[in-house]
């Protein structure tokens, strides 16, 4: 049994979106991906999104590796290495959408701190910005699914 899966419904038509942030231990943007995804899961689109720990695609079982085929999945990466997007596609299924958050943050004129450990005010703003973008994408995907 996985502690990481929030919930996997059994109905064949997906009604929830999967969100998989990168691990990102080394840089601030890697921590922002986590907090933004959690904000979507717990606040902005509660009940409409599920998550899975990224490294479970290697360590987990067959059910966990089917995550991206069971849910239209959004990957959220902290840098151009795109670890979540690449690993999700290779080990589970092609993501419905992939974010690399650096451009979005730069376009908003926000400067991230050096620390992946504690957030500055600007880092917190970046979390809100990224979370809002993910939430928009969740709506888009669920809307598309509903239209089918």
């Amino acid at each position, binding site marked *: 049994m996985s*502690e990481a899966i929030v919930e996997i419904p059994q109905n064949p038509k997906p009604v929830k979106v999967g969100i998989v942030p990168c691990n990102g231990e080394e*840089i601030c943007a890697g921590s922002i991906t*986590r907090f933004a*995804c959690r904000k979507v899961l717990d606040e902005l689109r509660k009940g409409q999104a599920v998550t899975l*720990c990224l*490294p479970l695609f290697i360590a987990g079982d067959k059910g966990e590796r089917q995550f991206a085929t069971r849910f239209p999945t959004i990957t959220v990466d902290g840098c151009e290495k*795109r670890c979540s997007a690449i690993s999700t596609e290779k*080990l589970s299924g092609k993501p419905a959408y992939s974010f690399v958050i650096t451009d979005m943050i730069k376009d908003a004129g926000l400067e991230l701190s050096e620390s992946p450990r504690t957030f500055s005010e600007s880092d917190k703003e970046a979390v809100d910005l990224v979370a809002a973008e993910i939430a928009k994408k969740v709506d888009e995907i669920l809307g598309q699914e509903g239209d089918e």
Partner: protein
Amino acid sequence: MGKKILVLPCSGIGKAYGEIGRQATYELAEDLKPGQVDTLCLGRLMIRDPEALERMEDSFVITVDGCAKDCALKNVEATGKKVDKAVRTLEVFKDHRDLKPEGVLNLGEPGFKLAHYLAEKLSGEVDCRMKEE
């Protein structure tokens, strides 16, 4: 100076134990063992990033996992590297059952205390590796 020590937390996103392992790693690397300990994005191992693999090859590796899935341990092993010490966050919490993290990522004071106890345990592991060398 000898080998560097790399501490790799799983950074699980479903329960607080993943974040506690991550925060313990930061406390260890920045406060308790500065200059001796470093970390690496676990995701880079998943994509077989050459520079990340090279850094790991030249280091002692300690993994920190938030549950019995042992993702950090298994992801390192999947690259062919042997882990020098595998720690589970739950090992530390048996003695501190009164401390309940407030949220999955927003740990609150009790969660950060747990991270601190884990960082101290990891610090002891670092000392052991240093003595072995």
